[in-house]
Structures are given as structure tokens and as C-alpha cells.
């Protein structure tokens, strides 16, 4: 109603403004007005003068007029009468009087009315009750008035809105929005949305973030209202090579164990073959390890590689790598941020034990068509983005493809020359703002790999995923996101050497999910997050089919598995005092393994082997064959010791209902995923963490120490010599193991200046114990043994030195203790051939790992208006050429046992990459 009123008013004004003529002397009024409503007062004035009065009756409710006039001019009487209220008036040449709250309506259009920026300014100047469209604030100097005076309850008001980039219209997530006095601040969420609850008053709103210019807005806050802020991109981003989005987030932020990377800092880290690779950069963060180079299987704080939830715009990605793990499967050009939660995992995430890797794409440029790309030694990529409807909707599409085949052709090794390898990935993202309250997002992702060995075996695997999100803002205090996700991962291994045994092995997993997440800003002290989610899994655990007419291979298909995993969660962030904040969260997850399935029954008390199967039970479609559920506690506390130091602690429990089966040291594409069932129990993990954070030199140097202790129950381990593929009674080869891990992580970061980067040291241990069942089922006699990821000492340096705005160099240094291996202890003879007797599992270690990489980044000119921006990266991976053992093995050759170590990148590898942006 209001809106329409004001709209017609504006139209009316513009007509009046143009068509006004003449000038008559102002009439005089007399009378004693005591306690009249504005309506009554205006009626009296209209009776005495030819003037007509306009006002919004809703805006003047409760206004009492008291004035005395003895033949005084109208404007003087009005001034006197309205002085006590917040109302102002304006009189135009057509004898119209406009009464508006706070600010007088301009009776003539501003001279620059038809310039777009000024419209926003004009709108901002109007009265802005809570339900009105948000103000788009783009001016530092002006004062933005939010809400109607006196409308706020209890003197407090909530200011909310989006922070967007001025040039592209992209939301800016993770930027901190704060006022200095009182010290209240929040960071924008993934949509760039923020909400601040403050006492009414005048504030300077500060907006800071990575890759954006520090921005300030003057705000007069009267009541709940919206303020969208457009910030400018910091084009010369060489200066802002920060890893944390907010300079003092380390200390002031609530979250602990969170690592946040943006694409600009990811690009600086030199990698093999010059491919910008997010997972490689994640591996330089404290507490994150891998088996070795050439493997992107992450072990976060001693957890297994399957315990990481990898989300690409909320859709799960099962195999995040290309070429068996040499590259990560995400096109760097479409990415915005990568967040890794190592502890204190928020309640809205669940389903994996160790960590959440949340990868978000950009929304695409909402203002103009632009693109970027790169040409490297192995791959090239191109990304296009632009508006579909300007400022409302945008698209982003990125593609990357390899051309490694021709490289293989150049090799001297004949077997490799006959091999072929290739991959590509595609990402597409659409966002559409339906209106101020509703926004839709859609993301699609596809990655495809194929690898053919000369030895007639070909591998192929595909990830497909998509997500659809609808964000609805219910009001300043509440918004919700409804998300639907789809994920499909499958692989095929074809063997065609012998016509009689030609076959194809396939595996597939499909996951459909829906979730609803809500954020409710109750008041300055309480922010609530709550929601629900459900996931449907469908696994085809393995299928072997003959290939070609001559093949004698019998079709062998494992029964499909299905399951439903649902969860409810709620968490409350409580600001107890300005120094002390607590987040209390609870997630309750519920899992059912569903039929149709046949479940083997085993002799009670005996080890599970095919010979102890007593019966096979058949479960019908949709019936539950195993149910698991339980609470997952998520709690964290922050205490600010001073302005630049804080202590945080957290405890979280996580439950995981799906496990990866891998019998090899590195992640391999033949690894399959197994749903929990009657025999494979869900994994449960508990972690407590404690950290101390201190910043120096105006938050430019961040230091932190985090310690953690972790316990894992029922994660999957294998009996010696377990058979994982096409096993119809897999439960006979699996054992439920326990694990524990603990460690301390030290980190120093310098975000700005000529020298910047980070240095981490981690001491950590990770242990496994398989002590259930008979002696034959136990590993190392049921004692704790070091897990594959147990590398006690780890030092990482990622440094960057900026010579000028256009030229910088980066240096990477990595050292870690060698990973554990099982060594041959003794030799013996069977049939006159020497064989090897191995030690206890993981009783020894490979030599320590050590690597230095170097890169130079040369940027083109920095003129902001240039048609295309380009940059060159010259990098040398493994500068010292150290041959780090990837794998150590022993082979019986001609009756002699010889040990070998295989290094994958044993020489310095130089690369040149060209990147462009237009």
C-alpha cells in the first residue's frame, strides 16, 4: 500500500515539477490547535487556505499537533506545529503541501535524476520502513537513513543486506561487516548476506574482505532495514594476497579449525605442470596430509581419505581428481572460495568424519560479459560469464580439457607410448534474482577421465553432479535456503587382451538429496541456524560383464544397495558477553539400509567366512535391513582475551554412513564405496580441539596454535589379503577398526606487504587398532599401529615476495616425516624361489619427504580499462630434484630380493602457463 502511495507520489511530483507556473503570496492561518491528530489539523488548514495536503496516513499515526497561530504564514505555522514530531513538509508552486517523516520531499527533481546512481540516492532519501526494498548504498559520503525514527522495539534494530561487487554484481562472501563502537561485526555468508543487530543510532559501517577495497558507509539506524552495499574490486590484487578473508577473523571469528582459501592465493602456489590446483594448496594447510605426491586423497587430522565431505556448490563429489590423483578436478577459473573445516564443524554439515571441504563457485558477472582462460602444458581452460538479465541473473560456464596424449606419444617407453590419457571437466552455474526476496541458483558439474594402458586395460570414470538452490528472505531476521542435489559417480575398467577373457567391470554410486537450511538472527545475542536434510543413496557395487562374442566371462553382478540418510539440526550462536561467545549445536542423523537385499547370516561367535554362512535372509524392496541413528554434538566457545588475541575450544561428534573400500596405498579409481549395512557399522568420530590465536602489527601477522584429540570408532579396515572387488560376501573380509589421532598445529601468516605467505608446523600422530574377532582377523595382534597417514612432523612454507605490482615470486617448501610402510623382515624359500616375510603392518617408514617449488608471476599492465588482462606464470616444481619416494617395494628377481623406491616427480619440472581475463 505504502509502496504504491509513494510511487504515485513520485509520478505526481514529476508531472507537477515540470508543469508548475506562477507565484502567489502565501496565505495566513489563525487558530489554536490543541492535541489534534494530523488529519484533524490538516482539515482545519485546508478549510482556511486553498492549499491541498498530501501525506501517508500510516506514517502519521499517533502524531499530536499543538500550535498557536495568529494570522501567521502557513509555512511558519506548519514549522511550529511539526517541530515536536519527526515530520517535515514541503510546499510546491501548485499549492500542494507534502508531509513526510524526517525529510522533506524535494518538490523539484534533482538535476541528475536520470543518471542511474542518483535514483538509488533518491530512493535512499525516502522513508524506508522495514518492508521496503533495500537501499543500494554506493556512496561513502552520504548518510543512509534506515528505518523510521522511533519504530524500533527496545531501541534495537537489525540491519541486513547483501554485499556485492560493483563491477560484476557477484556477492562477496566472507567479508566482514562491522561497526567499531560498539564492537559488533559479522561476516557475510555464502550469498554475501549479512545481518547486524545494533541499538538505534549513527554508525560507520566498515566492510572489509579479500579482493575488495575497504569500504565504509555512514548509516543512521532508526529501525529494521536493509542496506545493500556495492564494493569495488581491488584490481591490483597483488597487494591483497591474503588467505583469510577478514584480517582479524583469526582472532575475532567464532569458527576454529577453519581454513579459507580464495582463488587468488590458490593461484600463487606453484604446482607440477603449472596447473592451478585447489587440492594441492589445501595440502599445504596445517593438519592436511596426503599419502604422497601424485595423490589428492586428503587426510585431515589423521582421518582417512574417505572421511572428507567434498561439496561443490552443495553437491557431493566422490572423486575429486583427474588422472588418478595428479590433478584436482575443479576448474580454478570458476571458483570463488574453498573452505576447509577441520574441527568445530557446523551442525549444518554431516555425513563425513574428518572434515568438510566446501567449494563454492562464483555467481558470474551480472553487469557485462567477460571471460578468462589459460593455456598450460597439459590442459587449457576457458571460462565465460555474463548477465542474462542485467543485475538480475547471470551465467558462468567453465571448461577445461587435457591434451596429454601427444605428450605420451613422445615418450621412449613403448608401453607408455601406446597408452593414452585424457580428461575434461565442465562447470556451469546460473543465478537469478527473482526479486529482492527470492533468488535461484543452479549448478551443474561434469568431469570425465579416461586412461588406457598399452597392456590392453582401459579405465574411465565420471563425476556428475548438480544442485538447485532457492534462497528466500522471509524478513530481516530470517532467511532460508532450499537445496536439491544430485551426484553420480561411476567407473568402468575394460580388459580386452584375450578374446576369451575380455570383460568390463563397472561401479556406480548415485545420490539424491534435499535440504532446507534456515538462519534466524534473533537478536544481537542469538543467531540460530536450523534445518533438515535427507539423502538417498543407490550403489551398484560392482558388475562384471563379458565383452565380445568370444568371451567366456560369466556375468557377475553384486546386488544393488540402497539407503536413506536424514538429519535434523539446530545451532545457536550466543554472544554471552562481548568477549565470550558460544555456539551450541545438535545434529541428529538417522540412517536406514534398505532392501531389496539378501543378507548372509553367520554362525554366532565364529569368524565370518564363507564356510560359516548359516542362512541367507531376503529383504523386500524398501524394507529396512539395518537402522542406525544418533546425535552429533557440535559445540564451540570463543573467549577474546584482548583485542588481538583469543582462545577457542570446540567439541564435535560426526557420523558417517558410507565408507570407501581401498586396498592400495594411494586412492585409486578402482576404489568402491560401501554403504553401512547389517555388518558394516557407521563410523563415529569425536574430536576436541583447543586453540590460541594472536595477531600482531595491526592484524597483519596472524599466529595460532591448535591442539586436537580425536577418536574414531568402526571405521573400515581389511583383513590381510582382503578381496574388495566383486566380493559377494564382503563382510568376511572387512573388520571394524578403531582409530585415534592427536596433534598440535602451529601457524604463522602474513597477509600483506612485500613478503607474505604462511608457515606451518604440525606434530601429529594417527593410530589404528583392529582388535575384534579371532587372532586371524586381528592386525598386529590387536595393538595400535600407525595409520597410513601417520607423519609426525610436517613443515610447510608458502611464501610470496612482491618486487613490484607486476612481478612477484613464490616459493614453496615442504618437509614431512616419511609415511609408514610394511617392510620385508626375512626371506625364505618355497620351491627354490626366495620369498619375503613382511613386518607388522606399518612398522617402518619411507625416507623423509622434502620438496621446494618456485614460481614467478608476471602480470600484464594494470590499466583497469584494458581490453584483456593477461599474466604469465613460470614455475619449477621440485626445484632441487629430490627423488621423494612415492612408493617403496620389494621384488623377487632371479632369486634375489631387491628393494626399490619409485618417485613420481624425480626431476625439477619447469612449466609455463599463460592466463588471460577479459
Amino acid at each position, binding site marked *: 500500500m505504502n509502496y504504491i502511495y509513494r510511487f504515485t507520489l513520485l509520478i505526481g511530483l514529476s508531472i507537477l515539477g515540470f508543469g508548475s507556473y506562477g507565484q502567489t503570496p502565501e496565505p495566513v492561518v489563525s487558530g489554536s490547535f490543541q492535541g489534534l491528530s494530523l488529519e484533524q489539523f490538516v482539515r482545519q488548514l485546508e478549510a482556511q487556505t486553498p492549499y491541498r495536503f498530501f501525506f501517508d496516513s500510516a506514517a502519521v499515526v499517533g502524531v499530536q499537533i499543538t500550535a498557536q497561530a495568529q494570522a501567521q504564514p502557513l509555512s511558519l505555522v506548519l514549522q511550529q506545529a511539526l517541530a515536536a514530531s519527526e515530520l517535515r513538509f514541503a510546499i510546491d508552486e501548485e499549492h500542494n503541501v507534502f508531509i513526510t517523516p524526517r525529510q522533506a520531499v524535494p518538490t523539484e527533481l534533482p538535476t541528475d535524476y536520470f543518471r542511474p546512481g542518483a535514483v538509488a540516492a533518491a530512493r535512499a532519501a525516502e522513508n524506508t520502513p522495514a518492508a521496503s526494498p533495500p537501499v543500494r548504498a554506493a556512496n561513502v559520503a552520504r548518510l543512509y537513513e534506515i528505518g523510521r525514527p522511533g519504530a524500533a522495539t527496545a531501541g534495537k534494530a537489525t540491519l541486513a543486506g547483501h554485499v556485492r561487487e560493483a563491477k560484476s554484481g557477484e556477492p562477496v562472501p566472507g567479508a566482514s561487516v562491522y561497526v567499531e563502537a560498539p564492537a559488533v561485526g559479522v561476516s557475510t555468508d555464502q550469498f554475501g548476506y549479512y545481518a547486524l543487530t545494533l541499538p538505534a543510532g549513527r554508525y560507520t559501517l566498515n566492510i572489509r574482505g579479500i579482493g575488495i577495497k575497504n569500504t565504509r558507509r555512514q548509516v543512521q539506524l532508526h529501525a529494521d532495514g536493509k542496506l545493500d552495499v556495492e564494493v569495488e574490486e581491488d584490481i591490483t590484487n597483488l597487494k591483497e594476497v591474503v588467505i583469510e578473508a577478514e584480517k582479524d577473523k583469526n582472532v575475532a571469528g567464532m569458527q576454529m579449525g577453519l581454513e579459507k582459501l580464495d582463488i587468488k592465493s590458490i593461484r600463487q602456489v606453484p604446482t607440477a*605442470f603449472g596447473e592451478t590446483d585447489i587440492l594441492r594448496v589445501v595440502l599445504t594447510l596445517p593438519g592436511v596430509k596426503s599419502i604422497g605426491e601424485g595423490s589428492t586423497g586428503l587426510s585431515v587430522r589423521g582421518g582417512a581419505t574417505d572421511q572428507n565431505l567434498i561439496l561443490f556448490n552443495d553437491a557431493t563429489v566422490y572423486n575429486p581428481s583427474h588422472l588418478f590423483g595428479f590433478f584436482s578436478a575443479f576448474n580454478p577459473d570458476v571458483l570463488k572460495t574453498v573452505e576447509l573445516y577441520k574441527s568445530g564443524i557446523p551442525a549444518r554439515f554431516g555425513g563425513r568424519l574428518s572434515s568438510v571441504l566446501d567449494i563454492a563457485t562464483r555467481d558470474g558477472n551480472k553487469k557485462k560479459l567477460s571471460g578468462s582462460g589459460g593455456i598450460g*602444458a597439459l590442459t587449457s581452460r576457458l571460462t565465460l560469464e555474463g548477465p542474462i538479465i542485467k543485475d538480475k541473473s547471470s551465467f558462468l560456464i567453465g571448461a577445461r580439457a587435457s591434451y596429454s596424449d601427444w*605428450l605420451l606419444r*613422445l*615418450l621412449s617407453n613403448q608401453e607408455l607410448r601406446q597408452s593414452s590419457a585424457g580428461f575434461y571437466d565442465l562447470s556451469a552455474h546460473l543465478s537469478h534474482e527473482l526479486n529482492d526476496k527470492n533468488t535461484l541458483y543452479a549448478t551443474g558439474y561434469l568431469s570425465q577421465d579416461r586412461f588406457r594402458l598399452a597392456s590392453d586395460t582401459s579405465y574411465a570414470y565420471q563425476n556428475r553432479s548438480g544442485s538447485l538452490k532457492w534462497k528466500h528472505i522471509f524478513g530481516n531476521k530470517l532467511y532460508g535456503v532450499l537445496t536439491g542435489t544430485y551426484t553420480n559417480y561411476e567407473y568402468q575398467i575394460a580388459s580386452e587382451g584375450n578374446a*576369451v577373457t575380455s570383460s568390463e567391470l563397472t561401479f556406480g554410486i548415485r545420490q539424491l538429496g534435499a535440504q532446507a537450511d534456515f538462519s534466524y538472527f534473533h537478536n544481537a545475542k542469538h543467531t540460530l541456524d536450523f534445518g533438515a536434510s535427507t539423502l538417498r543413496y543407490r550403489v551398484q557395487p560392482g558388475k*562384471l560383464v563379458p565383452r565380445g562374442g568370444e568371451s*567366456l566371462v*560369466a556375468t557377475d553382478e553384486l546386488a544393488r544397495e540402497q539407503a536413506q540418510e536424514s538429519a535434523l539440526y539446530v545451532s545457536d550462536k550466543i554472544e554471552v558477553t562481548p568477549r565470550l561467545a558460544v555456539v551450541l549445536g545438535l545434529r541428529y542423523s538417522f540412517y536406514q539400509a534398505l532392501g531389496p537385499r539378501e543378507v548372509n547370516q553367520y554362525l554366532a561367535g565364529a569368524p565370518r567366512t564363507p564356510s560359516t554362512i548359516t542362512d541367507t535372509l531376503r529383504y523386500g524392496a524398501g524394507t529396512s535391513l539395518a537402522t542406525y541413528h544418533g546425535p552429533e554434538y557440535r559445540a564451540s566457545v570463543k573467549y577474546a582475551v584482548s583485542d588481538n588475541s583469543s582462545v577457542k575450544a570446540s567439541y564435535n561428534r560426526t557420523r558417517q554412513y558410507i565408507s570407501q573400500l581401498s*586396498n*592400495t*596405498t*594411494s586412492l*585409486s579409481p578402482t576404489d568402491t564405496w560401501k554403504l553401512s549395512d547389517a555388518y558394516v557399522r557407521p563410523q563415529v568420530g569425536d574430536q576436541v580441539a583447543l586453540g590460541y590465536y594472536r595477531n600482531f602489527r595491526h592484524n597483519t601477522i596472524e599466529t595460532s596454535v591448535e591442539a586436537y584429540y580425536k577418536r574414531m570408532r568402526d571405521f573400515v579396515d581389511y583383513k*590381510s*589379503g582382503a*578381496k574388495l572387488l566383486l566380493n559377494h560376501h564382503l563382510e568376511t573380509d572387512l573388520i571394524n577398526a578403531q582409530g585415534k589421532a592427536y596433534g598440535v598445529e602451529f601457524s604463522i601468516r602474513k597477509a600483506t606487504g612485500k613478503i607474505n605467505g604462511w608457515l606451518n608446523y604440525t606434530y601429529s600422530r594417527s593410530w589404528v587398532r583392529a582388535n575384534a574377532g579371532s587372532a586371524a582377523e586381528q592386525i598386529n*595382534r590387536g595393538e595400535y599401529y600407525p595409520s597410513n597417514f601417520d607423519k609426525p612432523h610436517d613443515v610447510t612454507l608458502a611464501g610470496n615476495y612482491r618486487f613490484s605490482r607486476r612481478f612477484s615470486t613464490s616459493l614453496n617448501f615442504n618437509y614431512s616425516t616419511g609415511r609408514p610402510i*610394511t*617392510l*620385508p*623382515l*626375512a*626371506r*625364505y*624359500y*618355497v*620351491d*627354490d*624361489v626366495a*620369498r*619375503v*616375510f*613382511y*613386518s607388522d*603392518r606399518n612398522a*617402518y617408514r619411507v625416507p623423509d619427504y622434502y620438496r621446494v617449488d618456485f614460481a614467478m608471476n608476471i602480470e600484464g599492465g594494470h590499466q583497469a580499462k584494458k581490453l584483456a588482462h593477461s599474466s604469465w606464470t613460470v614455475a619449477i616444481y621440485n626445484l632441487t630434484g629430490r*627423488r621423494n*619416494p612415492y*612408493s*617403496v*617395494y*620389494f*621384488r*623377487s628377481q*632371479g*632369486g*634375489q*630380493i631387491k*628393494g*626399490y*623406491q*619409485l*618417485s*613420481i616427480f*624425480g*626431476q625439477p*619440472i*619447469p*612449466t609455463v602457463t599463460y592466463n588471460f581475463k577479459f
Partner: protein
Amino acid sequence: MPRLHAYLLGLLLWLTLPGCVDPFEPDVISSPPSYLVVSGFINLSGPTTIRLSRTQGVANTAAPAVEAKATVTIRDEAGTSYTLTEQTPGTYTSAALSLNPARKYQVRLRTAAGRDYASALVTPKPAPPIDKITWAVENRGVQLYLSTHDASNVTRYYRWTYTETWEFHSAYRSGLQYVNGRMEPRTEDIFQCWGTAGSITIELNSTARLNQDVVANYPLILLPPSSVKLRFKYSVLVRQYAQTPEEYAYWEQLKSNTESVGGLFDPVPTQLTGNVQCLTDASEPVIGYVGAGSVTEKRIFIASTELPLTQRYETGYNCAAPDTVPLPSVPAVFSSPAVLPLYTVYAPMSNTIVGYSSASTECTDCRRRGTNVRPDFWQ
């Protein structure tokens, strides 16, 4: 431009040499364990041979330490036992037995130290005959294939071992021998010999996934094109064993533990023991799997005349040219066992003996690399 091209190519070649394999020698494990190793199988029809030895350090290349003076018996589930006697230290052989295939068998033994061991009772599996062994000349060499089947579809798990025998010649033929200070015509041929070698890799195949119990053209042996074994005549005797799934799993594991470990996607090695247990101390690791069954055999020959003429053989000998030993030096040179006389050297255009040509024993006496006794099966 051409220079740039060459430079780019060089850069690429450099960058595509990433994988490298180096020897890895960890600090020798100071005190290698000495566990009992039991090898052999219970033969349903014929003598059974069981060998007992001990494990030794990985770097120790000495002959395996044998376990002598043990008492070894075969026992069936009904309690009947058959004694094995020690032939050479550590090797225990039974009389030629004919055991009932319907019973289960085990090996029981007591070491000289008085510790008792027993293998698990196993169901014997008789082996079907080998259908054929064929061969083909391929790019990579001469490939031998094995085919077999079991019409009753019960065998399913196969293991093969083989013994290769080949004729070869030493680098130089010696017509003389120096005995007791006198040069005389050689009495024994040390030029033509036969070499022999057993299988080194574990050869297994399973037809459990096939509709029929048929092994078709299993690639058993690959002889490189230049192999000395093919120079004159080659023969191989293949023995076929049938196995239970458990025994097959053990051998498969043993194979993957020692033959295919270390590839990027190979499984991690595991501690593998077998089906023998120490009865005195259950925690003592014992190595070995004792199965039961019968063996079938097949032999084939490949003569070099059957092969394409393009084959180029390596003799395996890398010898210096023969050297003439003048007469005065003869006693000093030929009294050494390292040098052998080849033939008499005369002065030009005369019958005067000036000396004897010589070559190292290694290059002359083929018995260093085999036997000059013609095998009785040799055709």
C-alpha cells in the same frame, strides 16, 4: 622459429621423464627372525616331499638354513599316518603312496628342539590332465600358452610350476686336455651341455568366474627373442596342480606380496603365514601352506629350426678371443684350472708345434652353466 620449436620439444621431453625407480636399501633389520618354513604338498599318488627350512635376513644371500632331524608324518582325518624320512638335511620324503582322495590330510612334525607343528586338514584336489601347450612367435618373443579343462567343472583353481631344459654350447670348443703335465686329446665333451631352470614366478589361474571350467591359452612363459634357451633346442615340463580356493588365495597373496607390489595401484603387502600352526606356542609364526592333491605333467620341445630365421640369439658368453700359449709357458698356464687348452697351434706352413690356443674355463667348459649329461628325455 625452428630454434624455439626445438627448445620447446626439449623442455617437454625433460618434463615427461617424471617417474624414476631407484634402489631402496633400508638399514638392515638387525635381528632377522628365524621362523619355520614348511614347503611341499601331500601327493595322493606318489612320494610326498616336504622341505623344512628357516627364514633368514633379507640381505643374507647364503643358502637357506634347513631344519634337520625333525620327525615328519602325513596324517589323515581317520588318524592313519605315513612317515617321511629325511633324505638330505631338511628334505623329508615318503614312500610312493596311494592315498584315498575322499579323506582329508595334514602334515604333522616335531623339530629336533621338540616343538610340535601341524598343518590344517585339507581336502585333496586331483588335477585334470593338461590339454596342450602351444607356442607362438610374437613381437615380444616366443610365448608359450597352456590350455586345460575339467569337464566336471570342479577344479576351478589351478597352479603350475615348470622346469625348462635347453641345449647350449660353450663359446669355444676344447679338443685337448692338460692332465698330469701332458697335453692329450679331450675325452669328455664339454662343449655341448643342457641348462635347466625351475619356475620363478607363481603361475595361477582361476576359472571360477567362467561358465565352464576351461583355461584357454594361459600365457605361461615368455622367452625373449634373443634367449639363449632357443638357440638349439628347448624343452619345458609343466606340472599342473589343482587347488582349493583357500590354497589358491594363499598363493595369489604370496604372488602379489612378492611379485606385483609397488605399482601405483597394487595392494599393500601383508603379513602372510599359511595353514601351518605351532601346537606348542600358538603365537609363533609359521610360514607355508601344505595342500593335498595330485600332479599332472606335460612336456614339449621347441627346436630352433622351427623358429623364423630372423631370431638373433645371445650366447650369454662375453669372451675374449683365444690366446696362444707358447710351449715354454704351457705348464705354468695350464696347471691353473681357470684356463683350458683349445687346439694345437702350428708354425706357418709346417708341422712344428709352437703352442696351444687357450681360453678361460668359464668360456670353454659348458658344465659351468649346466650339465653335459644328455637328459634321458631329450629327443
